[in-house]
């Protein structure tokens, strides 16, 4: 049944092309119905799914001569991310209610992207996973290049090429693994059981991991993320930061770490104090956290603040994966969900509520407008989202980052201190952006926007409420997701990882 999330989205995209040319409203409603249907399916499965273990949805031979199967399955981790995709898809459409130019095409690309994302999360065959992973690239490019803003063609091309280079690295690793195993299968579970030689894993692991981590915004390969996010239209930035970056992190966990667990083991020698790929990536993740936060601190463009904050928050995900203990990795999965919701919310406020009205994202110019008085709803939403993003208790970000921190404390006590510093900077940049964007100081010369800003619309209010409610719900009752994520991590698929360097 969960497989229908994919089909419905693709069918919705195809149906979009058949709509009459000039009818923007029907396109919006069709897109919304499609997204809600996908989410409803995910929710029903979530309610019935208590154990978090792997369920095969469909498994039929696809290309028999190469042992490739059309194999869709879900476990707790993919279900969590499918839910996230459903929520972001719905709210993204609500926040793009104002798209008037080429509406049909916009939503066709949008639904194509959503369908492919569902596909990646549900694929259990490496070839199939890769197919969906690459389908994502093209709609992403057009969404940004056609409907984007600042330097959109540059941002879109940069994003497409970074993604494609990443997937090229993944492809090399996958082909090598397929040939090395010689088992004529691309099934994830079967390849995961194959004992690749340690030497092979030592080069294949970093190749595939980095290939996926590019899309997860790993420093220093993150530069596509801020430019891409800033150039994208609101719904596309929400999808990019909310879901597409999760594809990368998901690939790191589901493919790179599961296939090549020995690649995480020690090299047997030390370079600059680093003794394994695990150390290297943990360090890069921490640099990402601190670097992203520091750069966000000095941005003049409101959207760049959020763009760099994404890099910082995704650092937590990668760091959580590298802790290799249960609390750290489940924290990473929770952080994927939490960041998806919060980044979506922040981009919605900046892109739709503020920029679409004021046509400027310059913090100084926004400051002079004293937006708190004009669009209080946006200000309140941003304050709440900011608090959640800082990691205040009661929101999803708190639980996730706390779990990652505990995991890091066990694995790398020293790095945990650095992460603490990153968290403090995180509070500061959110605070600064909040104050500059919405609250004019006492001595500021006020420049009221001209013409007056239109009020916040109902779809926007609805979207913001959904996202805030989700974040609070998961923050107050994280067991909701952890109940299915933890059993998934204990499933046979991750056995190699557990036996290897699990702590």
């Amino acid at each position, binding site marked *: 049944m969960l497989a229908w999330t994919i089909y419905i989205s693709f069918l919705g995209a195809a149906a979009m092309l058949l709509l009459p040319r000039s009818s923007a409203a029907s396109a919006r409603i069709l897109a919304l119905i499609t997204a809600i249907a996908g989410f409803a399916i995910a929710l029903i499965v979530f309610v019935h799914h208590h154990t978090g273990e792997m369920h095969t949805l469909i498994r039929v031979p*696809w290309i028999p001569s190469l042992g490739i199967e059309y194999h869709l399955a879900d476990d707790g981790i993919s279900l969590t991310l499918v839910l996230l995709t459903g929520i972001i898809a719905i709210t993204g459409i609500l926040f793009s209610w104002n798209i008037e130019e080429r509406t049909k095409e916009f939503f066709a690309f949008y639904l194509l992207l959503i369908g492919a994302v569902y596909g990646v999360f549900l694929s259990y065959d490496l070839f199939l996973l890769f197919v969906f992973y690459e389908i994502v690239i093209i709609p992403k490019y057009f969404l940004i290049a056609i409907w984007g803003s600042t330097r959109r*063609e540059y941002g879109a091309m940069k994003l497409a090429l970074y993604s494609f280079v990443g997937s090229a690295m993944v492809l*090399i690793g996958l082909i090598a693994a397929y*040939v090395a195993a010689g088992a004529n299968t691309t099934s994830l579970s079967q390849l995961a059981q194959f004992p690749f030689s340690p030497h092979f894993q030592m080069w294949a692991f970093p190749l595939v991991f980095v290939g996926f981590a590019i899309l997860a915004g790993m420093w220093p390969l993150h530069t596509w993320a801020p430019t891409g996010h800033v150039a994208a239209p609101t719904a596309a930035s929400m999808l990019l930061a909310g879901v597409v970056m999760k594809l990368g992190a998901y690939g790191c966990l589901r493919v790179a770490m599961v296939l090549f667990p020995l690649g995480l083991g020690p090299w047997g020698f030390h370079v600059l104090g680093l003794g394994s790929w695990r150390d290297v990536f943990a360090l890069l993740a921490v640099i990402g956290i601190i670097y992203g936060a520091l750069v966000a601190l000095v941005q003049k463009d409101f959207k760049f603040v959020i763009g760099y904050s994404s890099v910082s928050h995704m650092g937590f995900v990668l760091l959580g994966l590298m802790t290799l203990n249960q609390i750290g990795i489940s924290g990473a999965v929770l952080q994927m969900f939490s960041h998806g919701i919060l980044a979506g919310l922040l981009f919605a406020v900046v892109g739709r509520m503020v920029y679409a009205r004021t046509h400027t994202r310059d913090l100084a110019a926004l400051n002079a407008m004293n937006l708190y008085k004009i669009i209080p709803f946006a200000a309140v939403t941003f304050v709440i989202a900011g608090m959640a993003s800082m990691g205040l208790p009661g929101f999803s970000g708190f639980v996730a980052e706390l779990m990652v921190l505990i995991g890091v404390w066990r694995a790398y006590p020293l790095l945990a201190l650095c992460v603490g510093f990153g968290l403090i900077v995180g509070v500061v940049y959110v605070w600064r952006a909040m104050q500059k964007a919405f609250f004019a100081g006492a001595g500021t010369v006020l420049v009221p926007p001209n013409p007056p800003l239109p009020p916040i619309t109902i779809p926007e209010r609805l979207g913001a409420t959904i996202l805030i409610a989700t974040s609070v719900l998961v923050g107050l009752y994280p067991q909701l997701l952890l109940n299915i994520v933890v059993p998934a991590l204990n499933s046979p698929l991750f056995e190699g990882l557990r036996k290897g360097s699990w702590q």
Partner: protein
Amino acid sequence: MIAINYAQLLRVALPEVIVVASALIVMAADFVLLRRYNTRIRFALAAGIASVGCVAAIVRILLTPEVANILNGVLIANPLTHLVQIAVLTLTIFILLLSVDSTFTQHVGEFVLLLLVATAAMMFLAATQDLLIIFIALELLSLSLYILAAFNKSSAQSWEAALKYFLFGGMSAAFLLFGFSLLYGLSNSTSLPLIAAAIHGPALNPLLVIAIVTTAIGLGFKVAAAPFHFWAPDVYQGAPAPSAAFIASGSKVASFFLFFQVMALGFAGAEGTAALPNFVRGWVPVMALMAAVSMLLGNLVAIRQSSLRRLLAYSAIAHAGYMLLAIVAHTEQSLAALLYYVVTYALATLGAFGVIAVVEQQTGDDQLSSFDGLSRKTPILSFCLAIFLLSLAGIPPLAGFFAKFYLFVTVLNASPGSMGLLWLIVLAIAMSAVSLYYYLRVLKRVYVAPPAAGAAVIRTPLLSQALLLVLAAAVMLLGCAPHLLLRWIDAAVRASGL
């Protein structure tokens, strides 16, 4: 002296005979009956008759598949040759039908005749393992293609392209003939398997090295592999659209099949290896080098092109590089992968040229700027172009992606237990990442750029539109269900051996 059974010869060569006969019928009909009608009708009727001829040849091959080996490989018929012949014939039918709406010539009969003669030459090329027949068929094909490239008599570009093609082609034919003569001298035979048996030995004879290199030059020219590619950009740009499409698709299929056969059969025993870290002298390192240079040069130069036809020419050079990898691997699987690749590649390129032909007829040139805002002017055509270009770039779920995947897997599989050919795969995948950039540049024009002010609406002729949709559907279908074609290719390769 072997007695020749002429009845059998005729039976085996009947598909080719049908094609040639229909060519003569077209010619006669055009001269005698159709002179007074306008070009559009003449083209429609001529293409119709010719297509019927091709269909008849396909039907003949499918209904009574002969299996024969006449005179030690002079004429061969087995499932594999049938497969290649059917592929070539199908592509020819598409080109015939796509050319119905073209206006570049009054000499309809001659044009169709040359297309069919070239097709027959390609069919012979696929069906022989004898140096003499290979050379004759290759020359017949080349001479037809030279004239086809020059067919637009009102365009100086077309003349220039044909002249360049002819000069380079003549030179490469000389190289090829020189190589063949050395092979004959070494082995006292013109049959590929017998040559292989004769040259087999522990050390490479210096004459054999020369033969390898000159043969590689001659055939490398046919498939437009670097550094023997100089004709390709000019011909792709200058030739009339149907001729260029024919050179880029059908002739590629036949030439690559031939290239594989000559190398894997004729030079068996002198392979050497291109696997790192220990190169061994032989023809494989030569192929590997040509492949690497083609991939690098084709992809990097394509970035700088401002005309879509030239861009496709450089991308063809890059794709020739990928396909040469299959020859480097020279296993049964890699032959299957090569055939899958070249057929899907031909479909996509053919489609792209079909779109170019329509756009050119309305805007006058094929500069990238002519494609600005095409999606607003003709959404269906733009959609087809997007499918073709993304398939060439290797984006799933289109045919080009699976072709690349399968090809790379078989190449890596060719040396079991070692990853010696991994360097070529890494290069190929890295370069295909580069290729996405220039394909996306074209699609950016089509989908993102606003249409030029005052640009007229583009009307697509109904037949072209239908054919392009069929091609796009085929590219999508073969990407989503590669097994439809792969099963057939696998069975043919297995049944016929190498």
